[in-house]
């Protein structure tokens, strides 16, 4: 019994994962960057840097700043654009056994729709993760993810154009994240992933200027874990689709906290920068934990802390 390997499989709608550990968008490049350091085949899934229809240059530097147990980033969604992604980045990923999930972003509902259309049916693209933390230019730049109706619209549009699972990635910068989650669920999302970064800033007291050229940036890393865990708990309560936990996950313990809170899978983000082996170590760590507590399957952990 204790000798038998625990079952690590988990599901995001119709997408079956060999294990619940994925790498978060924007923290793992296009996978290849980590090829010499990580056994990519072992990962539950690889989520690539957010892709837009056209290439984006991103924000001027400085783009990052370290904070207490965290970091701020204002990369500005720099990416190679859909064409280059398909031509230059996809082939490498097609050689990797791990699932590929493409994170997409746009300025308008139409952008998201076109990205979904062009990615639909592309070999190896197992799912899309819709980053709705981006500003909606047609709505005066309010982020799609901060308004239930806009979040619903984007999700519905992508859902109509894309036949595989649609994961919607939620922004934590809202009063009631459960409300947004319900909206995207009703629009047909197969799963929700959370959290994206928390809006923050830092100031250099020598130069008396914001440390980031963009003034504001997204806070990530261990500092935000308690906030992310709370939101996962809330969202798992308000939706019935699978929840993917993200936010400061650095160790096995962190990952298990999210599973116990109700997450069906987790993503490792900033930790990839500090310890490229983090995701792999967490996969092994969860297996070890299940064995120690003589649990047969990772499914036995999901939401376990909710019924005490």
């Amino acid at each position, binding site marked *: 019994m204790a000798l038998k390997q625990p079952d690590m499989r988990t599901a995001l709608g119709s997408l079956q994962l060999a294990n619940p550990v994925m790498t978060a968008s*924007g*923290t*793992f*490049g296009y996978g290849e*960057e*980590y090829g*010499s*350091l990580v056994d990519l085949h072992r990962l539950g899934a690889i989520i690539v*840097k957010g892709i837009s229809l056209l290439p984006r*240059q*991103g*924000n*001027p*530097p*400085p*783009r*990052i*700043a*370290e904070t*207490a*147990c*965290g*970091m701020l*980033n204002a*990369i500005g969604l*720099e990416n190679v654009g859909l064409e280059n992604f398909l031509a230059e980045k996809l082939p490498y990923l097609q050689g990797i056994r791990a699932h590929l999930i493409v994170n997409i972003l746009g300025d308008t509902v139409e952008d998201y729709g076109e990205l979904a259309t062009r990615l639909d049916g592309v070999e190896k693209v197992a799912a899309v993760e819709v980053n709705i933390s981006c500003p909606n230019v047609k709505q005066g730049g309010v982020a799609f993810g901060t308004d239930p109706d806009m979040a619903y619209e984007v999700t519905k549009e992508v859902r109509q154009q894309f036949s595989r699972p649609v994961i919607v990635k939620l922004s934590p910068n809202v009063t009631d994240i459960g409300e947004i989650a319900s909206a995207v669920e009703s629009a047909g999302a197969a799963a929700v992933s959370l959290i994206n970064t928390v809006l923050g800033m830092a100031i250099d007291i020598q130069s008396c200027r914001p440390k980031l050229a963009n003034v504001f940036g997204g806070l990530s*890393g*261990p500092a935000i874990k308690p906030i992310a865990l709370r939101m996962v708990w809330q969202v798992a309560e308000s939706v019935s689709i699978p929840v993917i936990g993200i936010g400061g996950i*650095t160790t096995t313990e962190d990952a298990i906290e999210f599973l116990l809170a109700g997450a069906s899978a987790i993503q490792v983000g*900033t930790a*990839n*920068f*500090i*310890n*490229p*082996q983090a995701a792999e170590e967490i996969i092994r760590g969860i297996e070890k934990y299940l064995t120690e507590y003589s649990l047969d399957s990772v499914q036995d952990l999901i939401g376990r802390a909710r019924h005490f």
Partner: protein
Amino acid sequence: MPVCQQKAEIVRTEKLSTDIYRFTLQAPDMASVASPGQFIMVRAGEGLDPLLRRPFSIHQVTGDGSVRILIKVIGKGTQALAGLQTGERMDVLGPMGRGFTYSSDQSPHFLVGGGIGIAPLLFLAERLLKKNGPDAIKVLLGARNADEIAILVEDFASMGLEVLVTTEDGSLGNKGLVTDILSDLQDESAARVYACGPHPMLKAVVSLCRGRNWDCQVSLETLMACGLAACLGCAVLRADMNGYVHACKDGPVFNADNVAWL
């Protein structure tokens, strides 16, 4: 080049000045593939604060598979690293980035280093020396005072290289800036300049080289989270002002003509 991660043992620690330390790490895999101008990302302790790895240029590589880095104490990360002792381990990732391009040719080679920017030049000097004789190479070093570079000057000199030194307080070599002696060099055509140091110094070196049509490579410092071309945090504005290159992948060494100098 394959990047590797390891907890390298510190086989030697030296305190070169009040705030500069030299660590010798046993890291054969890195030593065998490293080239001058490349860097490694070092974790400053086991804890979560400071969180990010710190980038350091490869200062020297020895035949017995060790890698050297110079660390100047700036904030809490370098503070923590400076406290490490021989026998302890450093969690290092590397070698990373694109280093200096150099070949064997007739042109004079000027290595220009300011302050801690001298670090990668020792490694470069050794490799250059193999390709070209000592006569073709001049080393120009600048610092605030003698304390900062005395030992480093020795290291270059002991290789049989001509070393020209300036200090801001005149406590060693000429009083002034390293760019002063660079401009004093009689206008040799087709010289190759390899520069590393504070941004104002690099700007001065670059404009000087442009005036004389000297080929100029600079090693740039930017904030870095990953060193792996994954976070895109290390953006550097292109010379054409149209988009960015990334210091950890396209650099840290750039041909001066490829990046913007604002």
